[in-house]
C-alpha cells in the first residue's frame, strides 16, 4: 500500500494523506486515453508549428520579394507604369494622359483616386490600378466599343467627330483605325448636352446598337449601306405613337423601322430588296416597315443612288 503518513501514531488520519498518484493502477482504457491525448497534443503542436512557420515564411517571402522595401524606411519612387488594355489604347497614349508621373513616391500613391481619374478618360469604361513593389504601377483598362459616330461643332468652328458607345457614352475616340470609324453610321436627330469636359450619356443607344449588330449578322449588305441613323422619331417607349428609327443609306434612301422585332423587319427588308433587284426595279427611295406586316415602298425615278449628307 502506498501511503504517506506524517505520523502513524496517535494522530487521527484522513484519507487525504493517502498518496494519490499510482501509475500501476493503469488499465488498457486509461493507457489508450493517455495515448490519444498525447497524440492530439502532438498534432496541435505540429499544427501550431506549421502555422507559425507558414506565417513567418510568408512574412520573410514578402520581405524578400518586395526588394526589402519597408514603408517604414524611406520613400520609393514609381519607376515604371505598365499599361494594359483590351482595346486600341496603348502605353504611349496612357503616358500622355497618366495622372501619375514617374517618380512619384509609391507609398503616397492613392490608387483609388488614380483609378477614378483613369476611368474619367472618356474611352475607358473600367480601370484597375495596382502597385507592385518596389516601383511598378499596373494599370489595366477595358475600353468602350463605339457603335455610332456623332458630329458637333468644335471650338475652332470646324466639325468634330465624337463616338457613341453601346451604353450611350459619348467620347472623343483615340487610336481607332480609320476603317473602323468609316464603318460606323452617323447619328442624327438627338441633341448632345455638354457635361463638364465631356457630354452627357445618351438614352436608348443600346437598342440602336442591337439593331446594328443584328443587321451586320443577318443582312450585312444592308447594314453596310447605312450612313445615318436618325433618332428624331425614336422614343424609348415602344408603344409611343409614330415611334420609329429612320435610317438613311446610299442605295436605300430611307428605311423606317419600328424599334421592336428587328429580325422580322430586317428579313422583310431583305426580301423587298431582293425582289426589287430580281425585277430589275429602280432603286428604293423609301421603305417603311414600321406598320405591322406591311411594307410601304417607293422606288426612285432613276437608278442613281441618292446622296445624303
Amino acid at each position, binding site marked *: 500500500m502506498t501511503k504517506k503518513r506524517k505520523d502513524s501514531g496517535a494522530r*487521527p488520519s484522513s484519507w487525504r494523506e493517502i498518496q494519490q498518484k*499510482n501509475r500501476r493502477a493503469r*488499465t488498457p482504457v486509461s493507457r489508450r486515453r493517455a495515448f490519444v491525448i498525447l497524440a492530439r497534443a502532438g498534432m496541435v503542436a505540429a499544427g501550431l508549428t506549421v502555422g507559425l512557420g507558414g506565417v513567418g515564411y510568408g512574412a520573410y517571402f514578402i520581405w524578400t520579394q518586395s526588394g526589402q522595401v519597408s514603408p517604414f524606411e524611406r520613400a520609393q519612387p514609381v519607376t515604371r507604369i505598365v499599361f494594359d488594355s483590351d482595346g486600341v489604347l496603348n502605353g504611349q497614349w496612357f503616358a500622355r494622359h497618366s495622372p501619375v508621373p514617374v517618380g512619384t513616391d509609391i507609398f503616397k500613391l492613392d490608387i483609388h483616386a488614380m483609378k477614378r481619374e483613369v476611368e474619367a478618360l472618356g474611352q475607358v469604361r473600367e480601370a484597375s490600378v495596382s502597385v507592385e513593389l518596389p516601383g511598378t504601377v499596373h494599370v489595366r483598362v477595358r475600353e468602350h466599343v463605339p457603335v455610332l459616330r456623332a458630329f458637333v461643332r468644335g471650338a475652332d468652328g470646324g466639325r468634330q467627330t465624337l463616338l457613341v458607345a453601346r451604353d450611350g457614352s459619348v467620347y472623343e475616340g483615340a487610336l481607332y483605325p480609320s476603317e473602323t470609324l468609316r464603318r460606323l453610321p452617323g447619328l442624327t436627330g438627338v441633341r448632345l448636352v455638354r457635361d463638364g469636359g465631356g457630354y452627357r450619356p445618351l438614352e436608348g443607344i443600346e437598342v440602336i446598337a442591337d439593331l446594328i449588330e443584328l443587321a451586320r449578322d443577318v443582312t450585312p449588305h444592308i447594314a453596310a449601306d447605312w450612313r445615318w441613323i436618325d433618332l428624331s422619331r425614336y422614343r424609348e417607349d415602344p408603344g409611343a405613337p409614330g415611334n420609329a428609327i429612320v435610317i438613311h443609306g446610299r442605295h436605300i434612301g430611307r428605311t423606317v423601322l419600328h424599334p421592336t422585332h428587328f429580325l422580322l423587319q430586317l428579313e422583310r427588308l431583305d426580301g423587298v430588296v431582293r425582289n426589287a433587284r430580281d425585277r430589275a426595279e429602280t432603286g428604293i427611295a423609301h421603305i417603311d416597315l414600321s406598320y405591322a406586316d406591311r411594307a410601304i415602298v417607293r422606288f426612285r425615278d432613276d437608278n442613281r443612288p441618292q446622296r445624303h449628307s
Partner: protein
Amino acid sequence: MPRNKIIGAVEIGSSKITALIGEIEGGRELNIIGSAEATSMGVKKGEIVDLSSVGRCTHAALLAAERKAGAQVDEVFLSASGAHLEGFTSTGTVNVRDADNWVSEEDVRSAGQSARQKALPAGRCYLVHIRGAAYADGREVENPVGMQAAKLEMKYWNVHADEGRITDMIHIISGYDDGLSVEEIIPASVAAGRIAASDDERRAGALVVDIGAGTTDFVLYRKGHIVHTGVIPVGGGHLTNDLSIGLRINFKQAERLKLRDGKAVLEKGDKEGHVMLEGDLQIGDRPIPRLAIARILNARVAEIFSIIKNRLGSAVSPQAVPGGVILTGGTSELPGISEVGRDVLGVDTRAGTHPAWVTREDLRDPGYSTTLGLLFFGLQGQSLGERKTEAPKAGLLRRLFK
C-alpha cells in the same frame, strides 16, 4: 477569464459503475454534460475485491462519460460504501476566549478541531467530519458566532473507513489519469440523502435509505443535521440471489423475474396466481407461484429494514423522524417496498423523488441519487463541515439539467 471547472462524480457500485460529468461555470452554475454507466465487475457488497476489473470498468465509464461531455475531467468526487464504513459522534468543547464571552469564528474552529481529534485504530482513516448541532452554554443554536456564552460545544458525526479499501478506490481514479485527483470521498448515503430528501424533510427529521445492489446505505437527519450514517451489506442483489436459490432458477432468470414480477408485499390473489418464468412457452419455461416470489422478496426486504431498526433503535420513531423514511436507490423501485418499510420501522415510508431542478428524465431514476448528490457537493465545494446546505438557485439549475 478562468476556465470552467469540469468535475466527475463516480459511484462504484456492486452492479454498475456510474459516472456523471458536470461543468461548473463561474463557481455557481452546474451543467451536467456527460453521463455513462458500466457493468460493475470485481465489487462485492460495495467493496472492491478485484482491483484490475473494477479499474477497467470504472475507466470505461469515465471514458464514455468524457466522450459524451467532450471534455476531460479535472477532479473527481467519489462515493464510498461498504460495511467497512463506520461512524461515531464526537463533541468538541471549548471555553470561549473573549473576556466578555462573545463567541467568535476562532472558538467555533477550536471546538471543531477538538471534536475531530479522536485517534483511530491502525488501518482506519477518516472520510468526513460532518458538523452537527452547536450548543452555547447548553442551548442548541444554529450558528453560535456573535452569541454570548461561556462554553461552546460542537457535535460532529465522523465517518471513517478501512484505509486499504479507500486507497484502492483512490488508485483506481488516479490510474485513469496522472493529473486526475480525488477531490472528495463522500459516503454514498450522505450524497443520496442530499438529493432524495428536501430541506424541509431534513429539518423535520428524516431517514433516507439508499438500497443498492450490494449494500443498503442510510442516513438519519435531525434538525437538518446528519446524526447517523450506516451501511448494511445487503441489497437488491441479495433479493435476486434469494429468488435464484428459492425458486431453483439461474441468477439471470431471477433478476428478470424480480424486475418483471417482483413485489415485496403479499396480496390476496397471490395464493392462486402464477407467472411464467420466461413467458415464451418454450422448453424450460414453467409457471412460478406469485406467492413464492412475494414471500421470498418480502422476507429479505423486511430483514433489511429490521437491521436498520436494530441499528438505530429508538432514533427511528414517528416522533424522531416526522419527515418519515425516504427510499432511494435502484431497489427502491420494487413494488410494495414502502409498505414493508412502514410495517417494520413503524414510520411513514415512501419513495424519494428528485428535486425539481433535475429535469433530465434519464437522471430522475433513483439509481442516480448518489452521483447527483456528489455533483451537488462538487458545486458547493464539498463543505459538509461548514454547513453549506442551501440548494443551488433553481433558475440556474433548471437550465443546467436540460
